[in-house]
């Protein structure tokens, strides 16, 4: 009931404030995922309602917000240890094993002696106001912060981690102040400030961007605190100051789309857990794409992370957990991504992703079909097939199956 009240408040407050000029829309997205893991077949379903609100109060002031309401059904409780190789899980003491369970929705409610999983989620994903001044724009509030020209990986983005099997899905909002200063029509400055409890821990980003010929480029500096949790003992995470110096470019060469993004990360240990493998490191991604006359679109990306490991035997429990919790973008050092898409008819597009871990020779394949079922109704079907041996980044025991997602826009 409390959730419903919050939902109604979120829905109607802006409507009351901005009266009739408020634009609203969004989508409803039921999704089914089926996975076969070690001879068991599991179902996970979700229903997501996303409501978008926006209003241009004037040429200079605009407001935007989104809230999501998601319910999860079927197998909502998972234990990460079930998908990791035995040599990794053996390190975990029996009494700590339940800690590796998690619920979709990340919500557990205690009622008396009972612990009832309540995997539904409601949250304000974005709510921001944008002020346009003569010389700059200011965006204040919870907003999507997306950085970098990479399609699957973004080494310069320390706010989000993409799902490599679904990299274009919208990212969550972050509480921040964003400043955009155009410098002529070719250059500009972009800056974020994402406040935390202390100024020292507040994320700060400054980017200079420009255009040279047919290439866009940027150089940036980003500073924020970072934590690496000790998942073996479940101790509080080691706190680091993380400073990233990097940049990106995107353009065209000999008719091919070409982009790249990279950065060097300086990690300064502040307190707590200090794993040996956490060190200064660099990440980079380069990619290229092309559209053939037939409409066939192909794309490839290569990614490297010098802190990740070159052999699967070197992966530790912490590495796996850091990757799953987005504390680290990847577990294997070198990876490649390939995509092809072809418009089979005006309404149906087929294609496939392939992610290949060069370091441990494992791969995941994701064939897909996108179908415009009706006006404003889209059906997306993904398969996911992991081919690697146990312990590799894309090991077969991760679960083979597929996902069907219907999206109805309103």
């Amino acid at each position, binding site marked *: 009931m409390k959730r419903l009240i919050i939902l109604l408040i979120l829905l109607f407050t802006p409507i009351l404030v901005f009266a009739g000029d408020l634009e609203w829309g969004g989508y409803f997205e039921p999704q089914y995922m089926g996975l076969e893991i070690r001879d068991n077949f599991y179902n996970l379903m979700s229903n997501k309602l996303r409501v978008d609100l926006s209003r241009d109060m004037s040429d200079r002031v605009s407001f935007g917000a989104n809230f999501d309401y998601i319910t999860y059904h079927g197998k909502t409780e998972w234990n990460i240890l079930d998908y990791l190789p035995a040599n990794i899980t053996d390190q975990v003491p029996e009494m700590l094993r339940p800690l590796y369970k998690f619920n979709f929705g990340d919500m557990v409610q205690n009622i008396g002696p009972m612990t009832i999983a309540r995997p539904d989620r409601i949250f304000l994903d974005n709510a921001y106001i944008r002020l346009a001044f003569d010389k700059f724009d200011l965006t204040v509030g919870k907003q999507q912060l997306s950085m970098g020209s990479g399609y699957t990986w973004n080494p310069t983005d320390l706010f989000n981690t993409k799902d490599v099997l679904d990299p274009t899905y919208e990212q969550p909002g972050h509480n921040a102040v964003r400043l955009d200063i155009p410098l002529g029509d070719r250059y500009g400055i972009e800056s974020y400030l994402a406040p935390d409890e202390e100024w020292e821990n507040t994320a700060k980003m400054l980017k200079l961007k420009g255009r040279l010929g047919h290439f866009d480029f940027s150089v940036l500096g980003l500073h924020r605190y970072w934590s690496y949790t000790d998942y073996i003992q479940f101790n509080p995470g080691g706190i680091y100051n993380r400073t990233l110096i990097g940049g990106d470019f995107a353009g065209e060469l000999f*008719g091919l789309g070409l982009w790249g993004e990279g950065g060097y990360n300086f990690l300064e240990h502040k307190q707590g857990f200090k794993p040996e493998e956490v060190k200064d490191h660099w990440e980079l991604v380069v990619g290229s794409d092309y559209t053939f006359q037939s409409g066939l679109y192909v794309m490839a990306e290569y990614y490297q992370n010098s802190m990740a490991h070159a052999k699967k035997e070197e992966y530790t429990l912490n590495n796996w957990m850091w990757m799953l919790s987005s504390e680290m973008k990847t577990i294997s050092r070198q990876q490649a991504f390939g995509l092809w898409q072809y418009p089979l008819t005006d309404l149906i597009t087929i294609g496939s992703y392939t992610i290949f871990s060069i370091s441990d020779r494992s791969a995941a394949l994701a064939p897909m079909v996108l179908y415009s079922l009706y006006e404003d109704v889209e059906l997306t079907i993904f398969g996911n097939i992991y081919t690697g041996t146990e312990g590799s980044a894309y090991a077969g025991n991760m679960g083979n199956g597929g996902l069907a997602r219907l999206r109805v826009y309103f």
Partner: protein
Amino acid sequence: MYKYITLLLIMFLATGYSRSQELAAGEIINKVNELMNQGSSKAIMTMTITTSSGQKRTFEYLTYSKNKGEKNLMIYMAPKRVKGQKMLMLNNADDIWAYFVRTKRVRKLATHAKKQKMEGSDFSYEDMGGSNSFITDFDAKKTGSETKEGYKCYKLELVKKPGSGSSYAKMIMWVIKENFVPIVIDYYDEDSPDRVGKTLLQQNIKEIDGIPTGTKIIMTNKNDDTNTIMVIKEIEYNIQLDDDMFTERGLRK
């Protein structure tokens, strides 16, 4: 005396008329280019796709154009699925950016993206991006005069220049002599240069702000047996547009 003056006048007019008949291919294509790339414009258009199975999808979008088509901005208004998505094309569509409203991301696209179908329609982004493409990407040759769709037309053959990035090997264009509207264009794909891949037909030509404008444009795809109808609901020419609209800052607004 009166007869003499009348005779001279007739001779003068006849000479002038014959001169207009003798326009070279280059002059005709320049006039087509000038007509299609006005100083600036703002239009609201609908685009209805009819698939081979008879299903329909309708899109509505707003377009802005400046500097004789050198700068173009397209904003989707409907359906809800794509509302707010934007495409910015600068330098005669040699530089393209897409703004994805769901991820609030601006992505620089290579020019090969122009070959992609516009939201599954029979128009590619190349067909849409107002530019000097007829001049810069093709060599024009006049092959005669014909009556097409009831209009007296010049018939031009446009052959792709070596090194051009266009996805068409050739176009046959019928241009109305009276106003230089390209009433019909046959497009020949690079993959099968001997066969018409698509045909564009302009209908309902109206004078808007003194400029002849085809307000209904039909693109028929002969390969897929589909067609897309584009209707101009509103259009204004030679209006004041802020340069800021055609920047990344403008895309994010």
